[in-house]
């Protein structure tokens, strides 16, 4: 199973088109790992072992299909729900669990809520919470890549609700004007917390919005990993050919709550949920793999078992990783600490020593 060393390498995505048959099983393994880790994290939150969690269930095919169509040199600007994208990039469960716990292995140094992470070496930019702000960043980074003549694309992830934000408009408008090599990957999971899509837009769909910005928008079945992969590979090829950005609307469904603080029964029916559960992207891909002879039932059980073992091992390691030192909150505010902040650090250390603050 993928960790930093053994993660399957993304394909040479310069060639647009279908996910090759031999990559389908890789896609499925990533989806199984993401689902397994997601379920574990929900449990960890209930047990109080992590503080908060944002689940992705229902969106695995969209995320894996997209991420497998990218090259490692492409820059990703995620929101907070992109666990499967992170896993495909090769960011290990241990590294992610360190972040969720906020221990000394957390490269965000315990500063962010769970799900808000990023790793420069994976070209996976650190997310923030305000929705949409990453959209203009992805466009600016694409302008920079154009200037440096780097053959890469930038890809940003956001939800249907975020299409109402001002950064969505600003970002897509800039991208159109400057024809940036950017893929706007919208996972339309039908809800922004409690609000259904009809409260975000009166447009017939979200992809149509691209028309107004002067570039293509495509709707794709986000429950189908192959369709998503094809759409992203085509958008990427267009971007690299200098033909500009694409908005992709992957139609998915959030099977779980918005976050561990949310109770979706307040705003959607059991019947609706049941209808979408029947379209579970993992079940669908498994069915296809079995039909094509790429997977056996017994091998499937083995995949789930391996994923559980991997997550269990990563969790044990993450929970054994020492906590973060309290005075680290004064680092990285600026490149070097200004005198007034150094004074506060010294004051904080004294309060800790005197036991007035607890580490």
């Amino acid at each position, binding site marked *: 199973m993928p960790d930093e060393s053994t993660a399957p390498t993304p394909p040479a995505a310069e060639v647009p088109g279908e996910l090759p048959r031999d990559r389908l099983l890789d896609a499925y393994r990533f989806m199984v790992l993401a689902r397994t880790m997601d379920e574990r994290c929900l449990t960890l939150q209930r047990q109080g072992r992590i503080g908060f969690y944002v689940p992705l269930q229902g969106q695995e095919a969209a995320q894996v299909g997209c991420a497998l169509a990218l090259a490692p040199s492409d820059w990703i600007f995620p929101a907070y729900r992109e666990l499967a994208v992170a896993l495909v990039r090769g960011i290990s469960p241990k590294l992610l669990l360190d972040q969720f716990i906020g221990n000394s292995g957390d490269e965000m140094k315990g500063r962010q809520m769970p799900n808000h992470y990023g790793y420069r070496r994976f070209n996976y930019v650190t997310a923030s919470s305000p929705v949409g702000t990453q959209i203009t960043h992805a466009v600016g980074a694409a302008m920079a890549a154009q200037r440096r003549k780097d053959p890469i694309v930038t890809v940003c992830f956001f939800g249907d609700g975020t299409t109402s934000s001002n950064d969505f408009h600003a970002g897509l408008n*800039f991208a159109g004007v400057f024809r940036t090599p950017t893929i706007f990957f919208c996972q339309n999971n039908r809800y922004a917390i409690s609000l259904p899509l009809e409260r975000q837009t009166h447009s017939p769909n979200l992809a149509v919005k691209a028309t107004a910005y002067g570039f293509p928008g495509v709707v794709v079945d986000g429950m189908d990993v192959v369709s998503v992969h094809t759409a992203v590979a085509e958008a990427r090829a267009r971007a690299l050919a200098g033909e500009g950005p694409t908005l992709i609307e992957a139609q998915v469904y959030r099977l779980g709550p918005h976050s561990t603080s949310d109770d979706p029964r307040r705003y959607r029916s059991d019947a609706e949920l049941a209808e979408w559960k029947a379209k579970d992207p993992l079940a669908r891909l498994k069915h296809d793999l079995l039909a094509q002879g790429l997977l056996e039932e017994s091998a499937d059980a083995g995949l789930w078992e391996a994923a559980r073992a991997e997550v269990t091992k990563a969790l044990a390691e993450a929970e054994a990783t020492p906590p973060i030192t309290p005075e680290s909150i004064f680092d990285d505010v*600026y490149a070097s600490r200004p005198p007034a902040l150094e004074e506060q650090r010294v004051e904080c250390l004294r309060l800790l020593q005197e036991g007035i603050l607890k580490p």
Partner: protein
Amino acid sequence: MTDLTLVQAVNRALHEALSTDPDVLILGEDVGVNGGVFRATEGLQKEFGSERVIDTPLSETGIVGAAVGMALYGLKPVAEIQFLDFIYPAFDQIVSEVAKFRYRSGGQYPCHVVIRTPYGGGIKGGLYHSQSSEAYFAHTAGLKVIVPSNPADAKGLLLTAIHDEDPVLFLEPKRIYRSVTGEVPDGDHRVPFGQAATVREGSDVSVFAYGAMLPQAVQAAEALSSEGVQAEVIDLRSLVPLDEKAVLASVEKTGRAVIVHEAPRFCGYGAELAALLAEKALYSLKAPVARVTGFDTPFPYALEHVYLPNAERIAHAVRTTARAS
């Protein structure tokens, strides 16, 4: 050395940075073909091309957001916001993203963006072409906030900003863009951050000011000199990081302080200075700290001259402070 106005000095700093560092680029509204509505970027697009001096769509969110992306990628974008009054659409980008990227990524993603913008009153600009809202930004950890008051500092501080590792909000006092000329060193002239300048020495009262208030404070100090009051005028230049040492040393010497800014008084930058003096120089003080500031109203149009602190009002406060015991 060349004699330049403040806005010309800004232009020369940008020219120097564009000439010496291929990663520097400029983006904003009307900065290219038009050379900026105040002409700060005059001639730069012609010389460096439209890929480095970029006319953008009319969106402050877009300008700052795109600059963030460029900075993350390794470029050194200098974004122009046409007036500080119009920066608010980008407030989220500045406060949530620019200021926090380094911190929230555990140091992985420095976000070195320079945002230059003309600020302040005195040009009959009414509510929306006059504001002095530095306190919003000085309150935000992760940003540096710089305000030059003369041509040489404008160039030197802007070049320091462009080559700094941290994001900088660079506030240009548009009222004195052309009213003062001064000698400006040629080439890569740099003025360090975090160092106030003593513009005029004096033993009786310390006057702290910055930007367009500086000439007013100097004028007040000179007028008072004939009355036998010697005011020391300190140009803060760098609001964040603040040169605490210079502020404290001056007040330890004079025992009296007058703080001047255009911005409204309540929670203005002067409140921070007054608190600093209360915390660290109380026993040196011989008189209450005085603040000469804009009033706590929106910025008025027809009565701008009533609102905006001037040399007479500053002199009045300094005189009162000098005599208080």
